[in-house]
């Protein structure tokens, strides 16, 4: 064995505690980087991979309503110039269909096919799991019904249409490109051929749907293609209802909330990694200082500085390589737990696959970082003279001030000595302050996610405007229904809001909120810059849309609807995560320039006069109001929504992720704090072992010395808890906003519960104290006699 390996082996044997502490920190760092990268490089891209594998094309167009004139030949003629290929098929599409999902229900369009869906050349459906013993009257549901919706095979799934209920047994779950996720406003499902035939016979007059899946030619923009295609199709038959999505929008909708949480995880993780990196550097530097005498002895017997440096580099390289390999393996091992929750939101089957960059980057980062720090610190060893090293380096005692003079202080003895230790270890205090602060920040971000996605869901992330319920009447009864609602004492703040797709410059589709009275709009955080429109020539557009087209407040935008166009003045930017961040809002008067506002149906968004803390009571109350409207106006009610009921369904997919985040982050924080305190206190006790021996000889008990040492960390812990609790509370939203802009959240205003922040700060302070007290147990092992005779 050569001398470098000999020294390395000796280092490993002699410094087992430090080696294990550093090893665990490196494992955590590699694991966290690995998980973050796997989420972004492997998990989320799986939505795109599956879309390609199932041949989802570049987008789809759906035609419902009056289908006269839409022959296959006609469709081909309309789109052939812009597409390389397309595939057209007919099925059924039920719009605004309430279906049970998770803890509530979602109101969503349902696309129903027979088993031909499994054999299509484009937009093929694929079975993920099934129970083949169910052979009749069955349905295959999108996979998200299984991962988040609470359904399993053998359950009953019901559809209701025109007073008739269609009941099916769930046979299995599907992997589908379009209609696989509640965020895409569409669920696609397959029923057995007999059931499909019956449903077709009952409903196809009203709900037949033509789907066109297309692949665009190179250079053709999806938005512009769809606008042109929609206009051309409306010319074929103005009674048709044309809808469509491009594949990027669908993928974005399937992943955005999960991405928000994943980004938050990455933000928190990056802080943990920074803390770990700082601790690594400190520990390596401390190790070299602590072993200066041994290193001096080695130099004295003829080892060169290069030999010693090499042994240190080999030692830390060995630990870093081993730790990073175990760390990345751990990341792969725990990834299915993260993935199972993330895919719940995406509704795409995913199993962890080997991803080279996500594997190499964390390992390389940890190994290179460790090597760099080791080489820098080891340079000191090369330069130091043997005799100086034997005297444990150049100990320059530079006590400028006698902090906490014992004859003057009013503090207790233990506290006084703890304060002396505190003032004598500023480097340790700075590290404790920063590391604990980062951990508090991580926990506050997790708390924010838990609060806004689980405990009190922040619904304006999912919907631009929130209400208790919506009743929509046809044009014929709109005034009567409004009058009826306004006279009800249990209903308040009725807003007339209708959603329409309009177009910008023949290029981009904008999902538009057309509001009769914008002063009644409840979501005051919607407009993050400028103001909402007041006059009939004004519009507010989403920030991400404005950014994409270089638009500013005060600019004019040409908005098209059908053959009509009007130039509006942008008064403000709104933030939205829906519809790919392409939304706009303007008034009825403004909309009148491009559409006949008097001929549209009446969509009435209302709140409850008496809101109960019990969500179930609110659900019942809204249901009662809706039922009474339906009883009174029968078929004139074209759509209803119970928001309280939808909350449960819509938020189900995110609750698991946010709860897991809170648990994981708090656990990791405690582990990191424990490891860092272990390394700091180990080093502190080593440096102060002589003092502890003296104290013990004088009559100090181990308990009082442990208490003093643990207490010496508390000023920096408490200062960190106070400072970072305040900083985290104020900075968390702007900090997350930096990462969320690409998702359309330009100015986050997530609620951060103050008691929660205080609990985190106080909790981590108490935990830190007890962890520090536990770590100081090694003081018990110091015996005054042994220390004195050893000197």
């Amino acid at each position, binding site marked *: 064995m050569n001398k470098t390996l000999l020294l390395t082996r000796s280092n490993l044997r002699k410094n087992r505690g430090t080696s294990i502490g550093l090893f665990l920190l490196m494992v955590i760092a590699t694991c966290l980087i690995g998980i973050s990268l796997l989420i972004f490089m492997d998990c989320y891209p799986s939505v795109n991979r599956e879309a390609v594998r199932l041949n989802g094309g570049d987008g789809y167009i759906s035609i419902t309503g009056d289908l006269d004139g839409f022959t296959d030949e006609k469709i081909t003629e309309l789109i052939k110039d812009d597409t390389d290929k397309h595939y057209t098929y007919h099925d059924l599409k039920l719009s605004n269909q309430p279906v049970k999902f998770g803890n509530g229900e979602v109101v969503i369009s349902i696309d129903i096919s027979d088993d031909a869906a499994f054999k299509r050349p484009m937009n093929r459906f694929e079975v993920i799991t099934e129970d083949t013993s169910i052979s009749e009257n069955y349905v295959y549901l999108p996979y998200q019904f299984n991962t988040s919706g609470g359904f399993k095979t053998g359950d009953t799934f019901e559809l209701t249409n025109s007073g008739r209920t269609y009941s099916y047994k769930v046979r299995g779950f599907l992997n589908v490109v379009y209609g696989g996720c509640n965020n895409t406003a569409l669920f696609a499902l397959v029923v057995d051929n007999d059931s499909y035939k019956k449903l077709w016979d009952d409903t196809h007059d009203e709900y037949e749907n033509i789907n066109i899946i297309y692949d665009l030619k190179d250079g053709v923009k999806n938005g512009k293609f769809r606008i042109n295609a929609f206009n051309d199709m409306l010319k074929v038959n103005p009674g048709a209802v044309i809808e469509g999505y491009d594949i990027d929008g669908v993928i974005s909708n399937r992943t955005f909330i999960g991405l928000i949480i994943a980004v938050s995880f990455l933000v928190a993780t990056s802080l943990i990694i920074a803390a770990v990196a700082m601790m690594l550097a400190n520990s390596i530097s401390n190790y070299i200082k602590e072993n200066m005498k041994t290193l001096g002895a080695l130099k004295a017997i003829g080892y060169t500085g290069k030999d010693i440096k090499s042994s240190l580099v080999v030692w830390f390289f060995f630990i870093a390589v081993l730790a990073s390999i175990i760390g990345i393996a751990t990341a792969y091992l725990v990834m299915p737990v993260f993935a199972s929750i993330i895919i719940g939101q995406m509704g795409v089957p995913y199993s962890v696959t080997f991803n080279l960059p996500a594997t190499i980057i964390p390992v390389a980062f940890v190994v290179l970082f460790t090597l760099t720090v080791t080489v820098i610190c080891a340079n000191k060893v090369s330069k130091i003279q043997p005799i100086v090293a034997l005297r444990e380096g150049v100990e320059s*005692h530079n*006590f400028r001030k*006698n902090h906490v*003079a*014992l*004859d003057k202080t009013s503090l207790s*003895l233990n506290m006084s*000595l703890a304060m*002396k230790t505190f003032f*004598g270890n500023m480097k340790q205090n700075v590290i404790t302050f920063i590391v604990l602060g980062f951990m508090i920040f991580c926990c506050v971000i997790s708390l924010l996610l838990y609060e806004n996605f689980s405990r009190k869901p922040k619904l304006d992330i999912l919907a631009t405007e929130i209400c208790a319920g919506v009743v929509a009447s046809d044009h014929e009864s709109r005034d009567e229904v409004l009058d009826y609602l306004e006279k009800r004492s249990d209903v308040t703040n009725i807003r007339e809001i209708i959603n329409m797709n309009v177009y910008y410059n023949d290029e981009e589709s904008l999902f538009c909120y057309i509001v009769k009275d914008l002063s009644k709009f409840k979501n005051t955080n919607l407009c993050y810059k400028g103001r909402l429109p007041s006059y009939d020539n004004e519009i507010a557009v989403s920030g991400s849309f404005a950014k994409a087209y270089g638009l500013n407040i005060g600019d004019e935008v040409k908005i098209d609807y059908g053959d009509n166009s009007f130039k509006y003045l942008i008064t403000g930017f709104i933030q939205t995560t829906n519809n790919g961040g392409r939304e706009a809002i303007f008034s009825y008067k403004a909309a009148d320039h491009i559409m006949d506002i008097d001929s549209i149906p009446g969509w009435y968004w209302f709140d409850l006069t008496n809101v109960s803390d019990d969500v179930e009571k609110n659900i019942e109350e809204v249901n009662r109001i809706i039922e009474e409207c339906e009883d009174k106006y029968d078929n004139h009610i074209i759509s209803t929504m119970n928001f309280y009921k939808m909350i449960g369904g819509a938020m189900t997919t995110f609750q698991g992720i946010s709860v897991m985040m809170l648990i994981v982050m708090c656990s990791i924080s405690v582990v990191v704090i424990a490891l860092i305190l272990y390394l700091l206190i180990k080093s502190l006790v080593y440096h102060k072992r*002589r*003092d502890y*021996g*003296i*104290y*013990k*000889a*004088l*009559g*100090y*008990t*181990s*308990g009082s010395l442990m208490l003093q040492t643990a207490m010496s960390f508390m000023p920096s812990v408490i200062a960190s808890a106070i400072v970072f609790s305040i900083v985290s509370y104020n900075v968390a939203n702007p900090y997350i906003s930096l990462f969320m802009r690409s998702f359309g959240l330009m100015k986050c205003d997530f609620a951060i519960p103050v008691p929660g922040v205080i609990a985190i700060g106080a909790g981590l302070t108490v935990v830190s104290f007890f962890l520090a007290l536990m770590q100081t147990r090694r003081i*018990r092992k110091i*015996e*005054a*006699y042994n220390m*004195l*005779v050893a*000197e």
Partner: protein
Amino acid sequence: MKNIIETKKLCKTFSNGGVQQHVLRNIDLEIYEGDFTIIMGASGAGKSTLLYSLSGMDKPTLGSVSFCGTEITKMNTDELAIFRRGNCGFVFQQVYLVESMSVLDNIMAAGLLVYKDKKVLSKKAGELLKAVNIDETLWNKFPTQISGGEAQRVGIARALINDPALVFADEPTGALNSHTGKAVLDTLTKFNEKGQSIIMVTHDITSARRGNRILHVKDGEIAGECNLGKYVTGDKDRHQKLSDFLATMGW
């Protein structure tokens, strides 16, 4: 004469790599109040081990140590620490002041274990520092900023702050030159004259002359004992008497 310490069949055995080394063998010993007891012996004879076993700093393997009537060999580490506070003062060869504390704080840190009134303690610490000839300008200096002799005298002041029944001194002049060593011995002698009981380990005859009772340790046993009487400056017979005793001990 009242004894402070009484040992019965005190044994200390070290085990190293399976080899047992009997450092102290069945020592029966009494240390008396007011005495300046000297433990002498060759290197490795077991004198320091005996000193620390008597003080409760080290635990004997067998036998008992009774300190002011209290059996201390059965005490656990913390009980011994608490016991040492008021009963034992230590002066070490390497001084062992806490380097991050000022001279005054080093004494206060020991005194506060016993005294609760900081004003009273502070005054007493000042008097002790003056008594060991540490100028007031040095009280707020750190140990690395004063000389070795000054540091050792601070160590003596620290050992005396709690009015211990016995001061244990382990070669207090071993690391000092003859001039500063003499000053330290003068200080110890001065306190012994005032009634302070002291037990000191040394292998230096000049230092040993300060004691009134000399114990010679050889191969872990008390090989012989000599009574010199109280120290008087310029007593030439004292030196001869000690030399004769040591000669009989094969010194």
